[in-house]
């Protein structure tokens, strides 16, 4: 069983939803990323999603675009991101790490070489925003052979026929994009998400995570009641941006939001739902 699958099994056993914070690798500075990863885990993260910087992030809103630009100002490459995960793994052998990004940095690496190196560095899964299941020939095989989970997105526009394909090709969990839009949008229609998740449950056996639009403890708790995982990105990245000139304040702000979300999510589950 992969580290991601085990983690979801453990959480299910204690009736908890997974909290998955996202940060962009190298933001605000490459030296800070590994420390921030440990900090997020200490404050209650169950899995980590690490963004791989790409020059043309067409699915990201302005907050994450700027984070990527800050990382690219330090020339953070895929090799650097893998080195960060390797460093993180030296003291945390259990928290699953998922890379999120765009295809071209993987394409130029070569699918097999990338999969081998990512797995050796301690990466557990890969979510490539512009890689739909239809184009995964070679890619999926390489990730699978290296023991990496293939995380795919499902959106409100995904028809049932494609959900079936995604359920077959994906592993680890499936990431439901809660709204039509880019990362960082603020509107979350919980009733609508709940309805979609109910439909997806009948088609997908993998755990269902929800992301886009979750920005505080209240929205995290609402989603924790209905999903297996809550992904939060832009809200954290926004705190990094706001406090990037004062690393200690930044750590406190990030840790504070994650801890609040953790507590609210646990409470939501205890109250049933």
């Amino acid at each position, binding site marked *: 069983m992969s580290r991601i699958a085990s983690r979801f099994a453990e959480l299910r056993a204690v009736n908890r939803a997974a909290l998955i914070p996202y940060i962009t690798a190298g933001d605000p500075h490459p030296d800070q990323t590994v420390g921030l990863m440990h900090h997020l885990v200490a404050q209650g993260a169950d899995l980590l999603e690490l963004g791989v*910087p*790409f*020059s*043309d*992030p*067409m*699915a*990201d*809103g*302005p907050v994450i*675009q700027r984070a990527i*630009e800050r990382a*690219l100002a330090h*020339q953070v*490459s*895929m*090799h650097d991101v893998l080195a960060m995960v390797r460093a993180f793994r030296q003291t945390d052998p259990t928290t699953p790490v998922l890379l999120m990004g*765009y*295809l*071209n*940095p*993987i*394409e*130029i*690496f070569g699918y097999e070489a990338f999969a081998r190196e990512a797995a050796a560095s301690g990466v557990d899964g890969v979510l490539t*925003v*512009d*890689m*739909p299941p*239809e*184009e995964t020939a070679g890619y999926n095989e390489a990730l699978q052979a290296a023991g990496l989970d293939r995380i*795919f*997105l*499902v*959106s*409100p*526009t*995904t*028809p049932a026929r*494609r959900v079936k394909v995604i359920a077959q090709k994906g592993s680890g969990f499936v990431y439901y*994009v809660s709204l*039509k*839009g*880019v990362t960082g*949008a603020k509107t979350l229609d919980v009733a609508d998400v709940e309805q979609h998740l109910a439909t997806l449950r009948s088609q997908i056996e993998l755990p269902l995570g929800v992301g886009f639009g979750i920005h505080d403890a209240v929205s995290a708790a609402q989603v924790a009641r209905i999903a297996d995982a809550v992904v939060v990105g832009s809200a954290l990245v926004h705190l990094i941006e706001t406090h990037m000139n004062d690393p200690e304040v930044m750590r406190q702000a990030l840790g504070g939001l994650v801890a609040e979300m953790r507590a609210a999510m646990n409470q939501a589950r205890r109250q049933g739902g």
Partner: protein
Amino acid sequence: MPTAAIDFTQYPDEHGHFGPYGGIFAPETLMAPLEELAEAYARVKNDPAFQAELDADLADYVGRPSPLYLAKRLTEELGGAKIYLKREDLNHTGAHKVNNTIGQALLAKRLGKTRIIAETGAGQHGVASATVAARLGLECVVYMGADDVVRQAPNVARMKMLGATVVPVTSGTRTLKDALNEAMRDWVTNVDNTFYIIGTVAGPHPYPMIVRDFQAVIGREARRQCLEKEGRLPDALVACVGGGSNAIGLFYPFLGDESVKLYGGEAGGLGLETGQHAAPVCAGRPGVLHGNRTYLMEDENGQIIGTHSISAGLDYPGVGPEHAWLKDTGRANYVAITDDEALEGFRMLTRSEGIIPALESSHAIAYAMKLAPTMDKDAIIIVNLSGRGDKDMNTIARIEGFEF
């Protein structure tokens, strides 16, 4: 690879692949709308009513067919092959771009979309989109790199007068590629009521195919006109290549005619050796950007790198996937034309024929100037004069050192 063995009319395949290129590398939210677009296009492609409406618009609104003009003085000056110009510069709005926006706007109407978005570099596609939106009474938002907004001020004014909203894009390199990113983000967000008119043969499938088919009117006319005037096919076709829509439009109806050689002129900028250019086919490598796999200008880590060209319309780090396929199969040849060579082409055509070409099209003229003298006097070259140069007067004035 022997090109005779390849039936180029069979591409792309149903998933949008041209050999290893093309495809659909799009965020999940766009997968269903792209499929809907492909289905809608498949329906109208063979629908006589749609084609009749399109043909009528091309004739009466755009002014087609555009002439195939024998450039006598230019031919004499160069002392080689006969040079014909396909006069896309005479189209309404001044370039070939409108052939595509007319077609896609009709598609948008069929799909019941009320809002049009577009990306633009030089502003020609933005103007062509704003024009058809005005004509059909649709809302229009054009994304344009903030640097290009400054470089191409006259076209920004035209778009605004036509009622479009021009949004300057300040992310990334503040040019065409970033405008495309921003248009994609808009589309993901407003997918229910919005139709994205992509201006070149790039983007995810079915766009490269749709834009090619709408632009192929250029080649169909040129083929017929050449047969009428000369009684035979041309020996060579020359077009400039940024994303590559005017080139593929001219080339496509000739792909099966093996005797016709195809030449695409990319933006060589300050010279390939300087790295300051926009010539991914000549000097780039395959990768994935903006929804398709193709040749790209990228660094060793897969980051897209900045481009340079004197012409904003060629200033793009990728190229349509069908061009990547035509290069690999050897069916078409791609060459880099520097800024200085393009300027020579610009001056040459202006002075010898009284036709002021766009700086983009000047790259094609410049390659014809190299090619023609190497060919017999009875050989025939068709050059796609994809647009007129009015929009470039500020740039030219600065270079030539005169003021308005």
